[in-house]
């Protein structure tokens, strides 16, 4: 198998050396997390997984229009952070935002309806999969152009301080995002203003179809840049919800206590293509295989069994989730196609879109 220098050579990336996951750390069984919290995180990971599988099926049935970006394989990140965040904390996510929306408690039916472009969608059909937002759940938006939302998360954190609350903003983004200018501006501002914001890079090793190491000057795209902002470089196993829970607790705690921002790199992998029907053939098969074997959900399942949870309890959770996803599907399918009366609303705070008298 050939390797590639950055500058030239191999452009069929599927032929590159696979980048393999770190082995599972069984020590994490012993992280002090109450079993109830762990069961909730199991349930959340099930929900994210089953929801996105359903969304994918419905896409294959041509019910989901436009694009959608699944985070199958990355569920532990949204789950660990979601569990630690307080209801009044703020989430900022990317176009790959289904999990981050659901993990804050948004209704799966309304989210699915949005993917279908229905009136009962969480954005009334106006935003679609890439812009999921649920302000009532602290989910302040999914942003589809790389970089901007890191700077916006700063603003929410700054506002929390000005309003005298101890809310924290958590901002999720991909490895590829660490190379755009806004990343740099956002990290510097967060650092100099000591903002209560936690930046979470979900390093899934790929931007769209290009391996991150080929286009990034350092090995850990986020963690190796932390020192440029006077921050500690933190790497966590992004496929282990408990490990994520632990760093989330530390970073959010620091932020809440007014001790400033953090930058965390969670190492994970997307099991499917970048978006929609992308078959993701550009990846080395051995890499895909190795990460599938580190899938966060079976691993977490095994952990719970090791910790003494009966298999039956876990099946019950799975089935409950399956029922919720079915209900969400019915809700979404039952939604009306948005009518003309919605086209010209919601541009301005007065509800309309008039630009002239």
């Amino acid at each position, binding site marked *: 198998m050939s390797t590639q220098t950055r500058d030239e050579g191999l452009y069929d990336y599927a032929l590159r050396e696979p980048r393999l996951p770190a082995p599972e750390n069984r020590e994490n069984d012993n992280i002090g997390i109450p079993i109830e919290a762990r069961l909730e995180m199991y349930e959340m990971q099930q929900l994210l997984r089953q929801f996105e599988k359903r969304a994918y099926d419905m896409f294959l049935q041509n019910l989901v229009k436009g694009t959608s970006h699944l985070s199958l394989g990355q569920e532990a990140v949204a789950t660990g952070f979601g569990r630690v965040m307080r209801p009044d904390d*703020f989430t900022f996510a990317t176009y790959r935002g289904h999990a981050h929306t659901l993990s804050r408690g948004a209704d799966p039916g309304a989210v699915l309806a949005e993917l279908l472009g229905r009136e009962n*969608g*969480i*954005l*009334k*059909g*106006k*935003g679609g999969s890439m*812009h999921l*937002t*649920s*302000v009532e759940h602290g989910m*302040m*938006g999914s*942003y589809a*152009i790389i*970089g*901007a*939302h*890191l*700077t*916006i*998360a*700063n*603003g*929410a*954190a*700054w*506002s*929390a301080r*000005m*309003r005298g609350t101890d809310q924290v*903003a958590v901002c999720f983004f991909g490895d590829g995002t660490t190379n755009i*200018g*806004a990343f740099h*501006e*956002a990290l*510097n*501002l967060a650092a*100099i203003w000591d903002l209560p914001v936690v930046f979470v890079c979900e390093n899934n090793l790929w931007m769209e179809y290009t391996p991150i190491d080929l286009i990034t000057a350092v090995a850990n795209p986020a963690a190796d840049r932390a020192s440029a902002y006077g921050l500690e470089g933190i790497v966590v196993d992004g496929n282990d919800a408990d490990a994520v829970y632990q760093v989330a607790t530390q970073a959010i705690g620091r932020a809440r206590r007014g001790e400033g921002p953090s930058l965390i790199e969670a190492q994970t992998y997307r099991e499917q293509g970048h978006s929609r029907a992308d078959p993701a053939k550009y990846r080395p098969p051995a890499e895909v295989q190795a990460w599938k074997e580190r899938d966060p959900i079976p691993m977490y399942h095994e952990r719970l069994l090791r910790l003494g949870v009966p298999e039956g309890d876990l099946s019950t959770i799975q089935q409950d989730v399956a029922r919720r996803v079915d209900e969400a599907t019915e809700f979404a399918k039952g939604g009306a196609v948005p009518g003309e009366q919605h086209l010209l*609303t*919601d*541009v*301005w*705070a007065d*509800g309309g*879109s*008039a*630009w*002239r*008298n």
Partner: protein
Amino acid sequence: MAELTYRNAVAYGIAQEMRRDPSLVMLGEDIAGAGGVFKTTVGLVDEFGPDRIRDTPISEQAILGAAMGAAMTGIPVIAEIMFSDFIAVCFDLLANEIAKSRYMTGGQVTIPIVVRTANGGGSRFGAQHSQSVENWVMMIPGLKVVAPSTPLDVVGLLAASIRDPDPVVFLEHKSLMADKQDVPDGEILDKLGAARVVREGTDCTIAALALMVPRALEAADRLEDQGISAEVIDVRTLVPLDTQTILGSVSKTSRLFTVEENPRLCGWGAEIASIVADEAFWDLDGPVVRITTPHIPLPAAEALEDMAIPSVDRITETVTKRMG
């Protein structure tokens, strides 16, 4: 009653609003102790302190992002972008995020931001510090656009922009900074979306904005001497656009001229011309004529810059010729 320069009117208007709303904050480069490179924010940090008047790094994306994030979580923000040309470095935040998020989220977020910036030519700064970018922002759905021509309008329209719950781009003209005007005591509050007929006339309508308003007025004086009675409209806000005032004037005069500082293509005058050529077509007695900066980057040399931007001479001559 106090006499204010256009420059001082900015701080005056901001101070009025900061006193009214203790949650209002401002951020930008060199705006605190230094009072801004155009001295438009002098004194504000002394009254409101460095937590409300914050100096930033040279990070325009971070500035607008911080403004947006704060605004959507309950803190109204004034963000200064030093020169309007620099809107290009943060255009994604302005055009794709701030402008669109309310619509995209089905109305879930409200973004009370004013982006203040120094716009326009006349300072011999060259092509990267002199642009008139009113059309850059007018063309973006979801942004309101204001461009005052007098100190009193600066105060009143700034107050209206700050109180508006939607994002407003507020263009302060560099070459009007020294202009003076008396402003009344007490609260000053204007409203967006109202053009002003600054000179009545019967033969033709001249629509102008910002620095072009005093030039159009002076041209109208000269035209009077030649027997042409020009009505001059200060458009004041491009979004919302007061089409009624413009169409009303054209229905009276039957001729429209626009005087635009932006380079020609897709300028604000094109939009107005297209509205008039549709809705007032049957009122028109002759061609709709646009007087604009040519479609070139703005040159630095004094002599060249003065040739590029519409002058009183050029306005007068063009109107005379095209009315003849």
